[in-house]
């Protein structure tokens, strides 16, 4: 099978999470999951004629029924995606990338997830994987922030499921005061410092570059090492298989060698992302 030729899938359900984020449920035409993946991996979704782009797979591999993608409206293809209705066929190819080391480096560790905005999408896959294999991991702390309450992706799942899982602590924050909000208000980097997490934890972080920058500085202040912190990257991609050349940073291709990097690995790369 040619890597660049995609398979047809059906979008069976579209769920509006926030004003600009929708979650799409994807199945093959005969009702199966398109392929097996590791948490943190990505896939190339495409609307023929509009374009093709890389999205992180939001659903956990432990979900055997369907695959989900949470997608924020921010460009040409994503605007089209936001217009589709259930039943629409799309194309997909993948899975691409390395994913998080859930079966090796992360096993048995206390995990701290830090996400901002749509940055929760790739982490949700890992969080649900860890919840479903609860015994394999230590405590799970989730710090998640967004602009407002309405912008919290998967709010219902967070409240109904994550918060009710033993050993999982969820800390939510929003940028500005809101009447309907009685939780924490403030930016993620400051909230992380306030919470002062145990420095033995392993951190998985994803969010806007500015959040990453300040949170990383904050974590280091608290005593975290680069080798404890993982993030997942985004660059322009076309082929997904490390050949077309555009996601090249140093000797790495984000689509093939990433998108998950440990910060000490990122330090080795030229600062061009």
């Amino acid at each position, binding site marked *: 099978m040619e890597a660049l030729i995609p398979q047809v899938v059906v979008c069976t359900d579209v769920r509006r999470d926030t004003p600009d984020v929708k979650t799409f449920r994807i199945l093959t035409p005969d009702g199966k999951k398109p392929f097996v993946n590791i948490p943190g991996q990505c896939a190339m979704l495409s609307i*023929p004629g509009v374009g093709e782009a890389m999205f992180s797979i939001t659903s956990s591999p432990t979900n055997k029924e369907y695959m989900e993608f949470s997608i924020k409206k921010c460009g040409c293809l994503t605007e089209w995606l936001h217009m589709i209705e259930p039943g629409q066929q799309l194309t997909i190819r993948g899975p691409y990338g390395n994913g998080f080391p859930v079966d090796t480096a992360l096993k048995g560790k206390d995990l701290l997830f830090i996400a901002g905005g749509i940055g929760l999408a790739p982490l949700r896959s890992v969080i649900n994987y860890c919840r479903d294999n609860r015994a394999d991991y230590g405590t799970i702390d989730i710090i998640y922030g967004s602009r407002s309450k309405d912008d919290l992706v998967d709010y219902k799942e967070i409240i109904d499921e994550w918060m009710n899982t033993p050993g999982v602590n969820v800390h939510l924050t929003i940028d500005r005061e809101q009447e309907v909000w009685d939780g924490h208000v403030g930016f993620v980097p400051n909230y992380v410092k306030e919470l002062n997490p145990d420095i033995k934890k392993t951190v998985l972080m994803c969010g806007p570059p500015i959040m990453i920058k300040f949170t990383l500085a904050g974590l280091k202040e608290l005593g975290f090492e680069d080798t404890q912190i993982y993030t997942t990257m985004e660059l322009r991609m076309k082929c997904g298989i490390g050949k077309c050349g555009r996601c090249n940073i140093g*000797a790495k291709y984000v689509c093939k060698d990433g998108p998950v990097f440990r910060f000490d690995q990122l330090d080795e790369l030229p600062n061009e992302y």
Partner: protein
Amino acid sequence: MYSIKKEALGSLLAAIGAKRKLYVPADNAGLILFTPYADGVSVNLSRNPDVSAKDFFFPQVENICRFKVCGKTVDVIDNREKNEDFVVFGVRACDVKSFEVLDNVFLSEPVDGYYKDRRDHSLIVTLACSKPLETCFCGTFGIDCAAPGGDVEAYACGDSYAFRAITEKGEAFLAELSLENGGDEAVEACKAKINEIKAKLPLSDLTTEGFGGGKTKDLFNNPKWAELSASCLGCGTCTFVCPTCQCYDIRDFDTGNGIQRYRCWDSCMYRDFTKMSAGQPRPSQLERFRQRFMHKLVYYPENNNGLFSCVGCGRCLRKCPQSLNIVKVMKALREDD
């Protein structure tokens, strides 16, 4: 070793062309381009063709598949062209090496079937460079233009051409042509003469010292990049004439009765190459220019056991509108030491 008289080249090419598709370097508007062989084509073997031989395996435009979209349904049709066996005549040592560079990319997992199919259908007849030019520096990368390799090697020695099979495929190919034996001595003389010229080339003293895998930190933040890239126009000439540049774009074209997905050459020199809705990791020509050379001299060797992704063919030296090139970059970056 087989040998023919120079005058007999035309009938030899005709004999090859009668059986298979044959491409030969031929005159075209002052250029030498690989051209399908036909009666009346003016074969020109005087210098390396202006456009590299990578097109045969990685053409500028290639159909990936077609989509039929009807209401909410999508059909995928693999409409790639079927390849037939073909022969490329007169490929030089540098371009042959470039196939190895491209193989490392396209034939690594997952294998690119489009590329592989073309490779499998090809037979490469190479030609030793009797007259390397001032822009040639293949020796820098350990390439011997007097021993070009490929499936069959050819030498222009005096009033005859000598051929030698390198691979089994080449052996079978030459056997088909029923040529006369001979030419061994002439080839040795020819090689000796080439080596003599090689030593005298203006760029013969260029080395790869200071470049290679692991040199990112030393070179990436060199302040020289700013001046080196200052007059770069951001066109794609260097990348398109380069035999090893392999970046591509995948695009959809709405034909009115289906969507044609195709891939085409792309260039890291273009500003839209890395542009995302979220931002631009290489915002100015400096970063784009640096990427091209860092990739050839550092990143690629790091991933491929020290093999450089430049073969010293010198096309970018000749073709850059503003006379920027990899030799200048290498020399300038090394000056500090």
